[in-house]
């Protein structure tokens, strides 16, 4: 009788040990299974994002290639038409837009460019004369601001004008007097268009304003 009882207890102990073992194995298996249960659609989202990045990259290369063409091959002529320079502004903005997260944070207004004016197609303004303003805005502006940059280009009555307003980070109010870029541009204007231009820069706590005006005759 006693022997029978011990035997039964033994087998009970054995069974319970086996049960624990099986339970542990089961848990381990579950953990193993969960380890690889990634939500496949999250990878799909990653794929969609990657494709968006690839398409941005593609557009970026196109814009950069156009911009480089303009910088390298139009440079020999010193003067370009307002049309060409506007095209350059557009490409340059497209290129830089790739690095902005906000939508429509860069606005270019060319509604007051008189396309019928003879200066629209004539080579009348210095090549890349707008570049300094654009570079400056992207370099020192608050590029993540939803209304980061506003550019207005005007052409009427033989006057070309460009006004740029860009948001700045409030803690980034630095010397108002420009650096080497501004000096270089002024020297170019003095050489090419002495006494026919006006340039102004100002800044408040949130915005930086710059303006260039050229008398075309």
């Amino acid at each position, binding site marked *: 009788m006693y022997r029978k009882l011990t035997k039964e207890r033994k087998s009970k102990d054995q069974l319970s040990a086996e049960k624990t073992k099986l339970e542990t194995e089961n848990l381990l298996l579950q953990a193993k299974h969960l380890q690889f249960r990634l939500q496949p*659609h999250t990878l*799909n989202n990653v794929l969609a994002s990657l*494709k968006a990045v690839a398409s941005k990259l593609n557009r970026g290369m196109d814009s950069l290639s156009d911009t480089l063409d303009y910088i390298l091959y139009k440079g020999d002529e010193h003067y370009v038409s307002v049309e060409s320079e506007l095209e350059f502004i557009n490409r340059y903005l497209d290129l830089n837009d790739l690095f902005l997260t906000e939508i429509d944070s860069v606005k270019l207004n060319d509604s007051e460019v008189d396309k019928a004016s003879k200066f629209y197609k004539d080579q009348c303004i210095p090549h890349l004369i707008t570049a300094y303003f654009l570079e400056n805005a992207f370099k020192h502006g608050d590029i993540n601001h939803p209304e980061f940059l506003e550019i207005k280009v005007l052409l009427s009555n033989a006057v070309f004008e460009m006004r740029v307003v860009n948001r700045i980070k409030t803690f980034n109010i630095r010397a108002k007097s420009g650096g080497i870029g501004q000096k270089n541009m002024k020297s170019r204007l003095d050489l090419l268009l002495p006494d026919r231009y006006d340039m102004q820069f100002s800044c408040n706590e949130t915005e930086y304003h710059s303006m260039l005006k050229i008398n075309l005759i």
Partner: protein
Amino acid sequence: MSRLKVAVLDDSKLLLKELVTNLKATDLVQVVAYSTQSEEFIEKVKSSDAEALLLDIDLAGDSMSGLDVADYLKMPVLFVSGKTPKYVHQIEEHNYNSEIPVDHLSKPASLDRLKRALPKFIQQVEQYTRQTSIRLDFANSKGNLINLDDIVYVETEQGKGGESGNKRIHFRNRPFERLIDLSFPALERAGLSKHKFIQPHKSYRVNAERILSYDSTSHKIEVKSHNGIGQISVQIPVSENYRKLVRSNIKST
């Protein structure tokens, strides 16, 4: 012809920007509103003159899905989703329950694919917004074909102890009729397009073209409807929430 005005919703800012950029590049539509978040999106759509929606379906961390947004706004919609197969039944449901155009496009919506998909969708939307008549069951006659131009406004009927489920529909050339147990969303699904009929108050829908004036001090709009003998002037209240929208639709007097 002016380009179709669309509003775009995608929970990923990267993909939203890409979609907006591509849509602009097609030169087929004009993007008038966009957002990454359903609630903000609905607000923006309400205060814009959008004619159609482009909606992502799965909105991470949002209280609504793109399907919910489409149900709520009752406007023509092109679903743009990476998981269209998963939602195809719901999209079909959405399509069959309404006269409003519904289409879908799987992500990513590249420029090339948008250029191929948009013309057909635009055509559908234009047919819908140019729809000139609507079929309605009145209290005592069924299946009446009504010219949308003749409808001046629709109001919720006052029942005992508040608003009833019935509506009164007022015309410019015939006495009003009763619509039994018909909700405004059901009317919209039948073809009372949100584009033509604006909502100045939760109990009213008014044909924007029939509004004569808006008094911005008493906040009432004036229309003329037929009472069986001739046209009479009717003042319709404009609730605070809808004033901006009403003002954008008509000139204040």
